[in-house]
């Protein structure tokens, strides 16, 4: 009985997910993360609770809908905001503004926002519901050597749910991947290990103090878990987001490469993921705080870092 009511909190499910492991995959994105990476391109993945999101491009202006959202809000959390020009008519449209200090993410406004400019990020799924959704795409996994990926946020912060979903998928004969920051208790990692064909494992910085200063947590646990996984025979894809002025210096990349080399055969591939700024505007969907934007690393630089890692002796390094 208990198993049936087990739920997980997700902020997205993506089919034809081609960047989260081999083949064509469907990825479940779980909500909530202990890290606060400033470059995170899915800011809605960080909080563990449902959040009200607002996409200005979808909002058709309060004149058209007669401010339905404002009327529906019992917390007085929505006020008139700036205007934007309608792409077609070039007429100004009156936008809204969400007062985040008053909003309790109840979603009443989203209910009545028909163009879905306001919507709640974060929805509870039972194990059955998520498994049914993942199985819907199974015919695409077969031809492509794909499968399912559980990602986040940090999915290992909802371990009971994740273990159950992975167990079911393995029983169906589907390839499973877990995309993780590695920042979780080893006891948790150990629980998903038997049902996980591949770990997509992030390494952000080799220096713990820098790691803590920028993403909010130290790196010892992450590195230790990586070693334990390797020792336990897990398969891993190491993913390194290349962030300007943070971890793209040659010293750090070299040390990262050396660490990967230590992990031995467990590492199938090391991916260098160049920073991109596509997530920047997403921050304004859930808060008033814009995020600093950096210049994406050049192709040339990425090639240089790749060469550097190969020099250290890593056989398979890719960009993207």
């Amino acid at each position, binding site marked *: 009985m208990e198993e049936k009511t087990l739920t997980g909190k997700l902020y997205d499910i*993506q*089919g*034809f997910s*081609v*960047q989260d492991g*081999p*083949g*064509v995959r*469907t990825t479940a994105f779980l909500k909530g993360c202990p890290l606060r990476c400033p470059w995170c391109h899915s800011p809605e993945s960080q909080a563990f609770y449902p959040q009200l999101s607002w*996409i200005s*491009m*979808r909002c058709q202006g309060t004149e*058209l*809908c007669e401010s339905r959202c404002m009327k529906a809000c019992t917390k007085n959390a929505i006020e008139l905001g700036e205007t934007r020009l309608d792409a077609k008519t070039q007429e100004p449209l009156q936008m809204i503004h969400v007062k985040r200090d008053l909003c309790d993410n109840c979603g009443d406004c989203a209910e009545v*926002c*028909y*163009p*879905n400019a306001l919507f709640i990020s974060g929805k509870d799924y039972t194990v059955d519901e998520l498994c049914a959704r993942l199985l*819907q*795409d199974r*015919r*695409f996994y*077969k*031809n*492509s*050597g*794909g499968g399912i990926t559980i990602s986040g946020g940090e999915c290992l912060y909802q371990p009971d749910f994740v273990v159950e979903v992975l167990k079911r998928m393995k029983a169906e004969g589907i390839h499973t991947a877990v995309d993780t920051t590695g920042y979780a208790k080893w006891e948790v990692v150990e629980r998903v290990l038997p049902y996980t064909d591949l770990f997509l494992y992030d390494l952000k910085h080799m220096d713990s103090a820098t790691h803590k200063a920028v993403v909010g947590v130290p790196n010892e646990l992450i590195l230790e878990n990586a070693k334990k996984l390797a020792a336990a025979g897990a398969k891993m894809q190491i993913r390194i987001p290349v962030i300007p002025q943070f971890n793209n210096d040659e010293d750090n990349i070299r040390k990262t490469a050396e660490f990967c080399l230590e992990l031995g055969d467990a590492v199938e591939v090391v991916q260098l993921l160049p920073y991109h700024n596509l997530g920047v505007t997403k921050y304004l969907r859930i808060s008033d705080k814009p995020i600093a934007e950096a210049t994406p690393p050049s192709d040339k630089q990425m090639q240089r870092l790749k060469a550097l890692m190969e020099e250290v002796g890593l056989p398979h390094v*890719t960009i*993207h």
Partner: protein
Amino acid sequence: MHEWKPVTDRVARIREKYRNTRPKVDINRYRLVTEFYMNNPQLTGILKRAKNLRNLFENMPVLVNEDEVIVGWQGASYRCCALYPETSFNWFMKELRAGTIPLRQQDPYDIDPEDEKYLLETGDYWDKHSMSAIVDEYMPRYHRDNMIGNGVLFFGKKDNCQSPVGHFVANFWTATQKGFGAIQKEAEDKMAQMEEDGIFGDDIYKYNFYRAISIVSEGIIHWSERYAKECERQAELCQDPARKKELLEMADCLNWIMKNPCRNFHDAVQCIYLYQLSMCMDGQQHGISYGRVDQYLGRYYEQDIANGTITPEYAQEILDLFYLKVAECNKIWSEGATKSGPGYTSGQLMTLGGVDKDGNDATNPVTYMMLQSSGRLVLHDPPQALRIHDGTPDELWEAAIETTKRAGGVPTFESDKVIIEALMKRGIPLEDARNYCLNGCVEPSVGGYEWAQPGGTGTESYLNIANALLLAINNGTNPMRFPGAPEPKRTGPATGYLYEMTSMDQVLEAYKTQVDFFTKWQCTNINAWESMSSFHNPLPMVSATLEGCMENGKDCQCGGAKYNSTGNSCIGLGNVADSLNIIDQVCFKRKIATTRELYDALMANWEGYEELRQIINGKIPRYGNADPEADKYVDFTASTYANGINRATGPRGRFSAGCYPVTANVIFGWFTWATPDGRKCGEPLSDGISNVQGMDKNGPVSFINSVLNFDQSEYGNGTLCNMKFHPTALQGEGGMMKLRSVMQTYFDEGGMELQLNIVSSDTLRDAQKHPENYKDLVVRVAGFSAYFVEVFKDCQDDLIRRTEMSL
């Protein structure tokens, strides 16, 4: 790795000329046909058509342009078009008098003032002598008196069937391997035998047929020899020894082919091109397709390479030159019709790949050469269709995907498994079904063996099922109101009004009643057309090779072919599937609005009901997202139409359902009132078997899961599925492999056809703003590709909407 090899200088020169020449109207064909018809009222039926064609063979100008090796043309100047007045001409005269032809926005044509004068003097002759005028007289009474303005069918009171026929594939194996000398002899022998025995019973019809075959066979041989003479003439004047030699070789080829079996690759290419052109010149050049070109040419190529008589580079150059000739082909359409097939396309589809009659992979070197030509020349025409099966080689997949990235949407991908199954369902045995090809846009037929008439009468073959739904909930009356027009009257069965309906079952029943009624009339009217077309417009040039015709002594239009069917297509599948679900959700399940409110909202074109429209657009699950609730009525919609069509028969055999729109979804949308799926009056209908534009929010895999909800093997006349991929989604290692696996899965699970646009909506928007930078940007439009900057604005917008990724 697939690589693009550079083209030769002369190929580059011709391509440049092709892209920079504005098409003009050439009246040589028009003048010859008009004078022939005026001077020979005593001639009728097949003999008239045969002698008319022979007259063209004898008197059309022979044009051999600089740099060309593959020759044959339909007029006196480069990239000109011919006119086909014996089919329909009112539209042309109207536009000519209005002076809009050189000025119109889509596919304008220049006309010489002297030619214009001649056309104005003679053109009205065709008002009473064209096929269209004849068909108008023979339209069934009930339809004529009671059904005009229904909006479901395209048949009207006047000017029906303006662009009929086309969409066939002759037997090019017979043309290349047997030759018309032998065919003529066969016809002559049969006639001699009949004359000796006496001609009794209905043998006289056969006798007339063989007579026509003999005439056109002799004619095409003569035509080829006239080209040979022109090559010889030019050779005599030529200073360049290399070109001189080439011209003499061309003359030798042209003197030989048509009469005799082809000897080599050059012969075979020239033969299929010239034979195809003769059929374009005889019939309407529209969707007349080439069939399995790699299968015709493969043996000659391999033989020549083995003999050392040709180099791969020269063979590729010949193929390039052939492709440029086909690309040059175009025909003028009415301004209205142009909008359903924009971009100067003549739709001469070529098929490649697939299995042979034993089920083995049929790929040969020419298969790759065809993709090489399409890709390296960045041509939207000729369109290509690649047959995919389990044994399709990896290299061929790769070459095809690279080609489709470069020449947007060329080739399309076709599922052997599903299409062969669909053809067997219409009675074709496995061995012949395996030899299928695609016609026009996406319509399968057994090329050279089947008279499938997938284009039927032309535009009239499209059935607007979105309007059938509107009639179902409006008591059989089309709610479309035109300013100044009389109040619309009932044209379909009186199925009641939405506000009288108390359950979803009643809505479904009303819809089915309308579709059954209109499919019945659709097929009835097409049969009325065929009764006249088969008499006035037989096609002996096609029948000369088409399997069965010589044996049966019958023209293809009269049922002479080995296999027979008639195609049809619906438009608006996505709109109807969504509309039915929305009526169910809004009025019955969730009770968001009453049937009266929804009805009133529709009749008001949503004015004053914006809130309801927004709920429908934002809060009700939609087709295209693999949501079982939303996809509930897809199968019902698809099978209601298909059953209505597939049970109908014509004089030659059964009808066959399809779902592909060219860009008629945009045109039909202009004339379709507001629909329950939130669509306003005038907006485009959904495209092919896709969801309503922009409603698929969950990416390609969910989209395919939705589309696979109905049985495509019931759609023997083809389905069309446009898929969009953002270029970034396919980046990185294995991106293309992933794309391929998605397509393979679609085919494994019952999908028939896929065509791809791998371009971002940002790129298309930029191309709208700066067309000068995107002259060679080819995109898939519908059953064909086009240069994006050459299609009309509404169609560009529709493409952008389809390509848009959800926010």
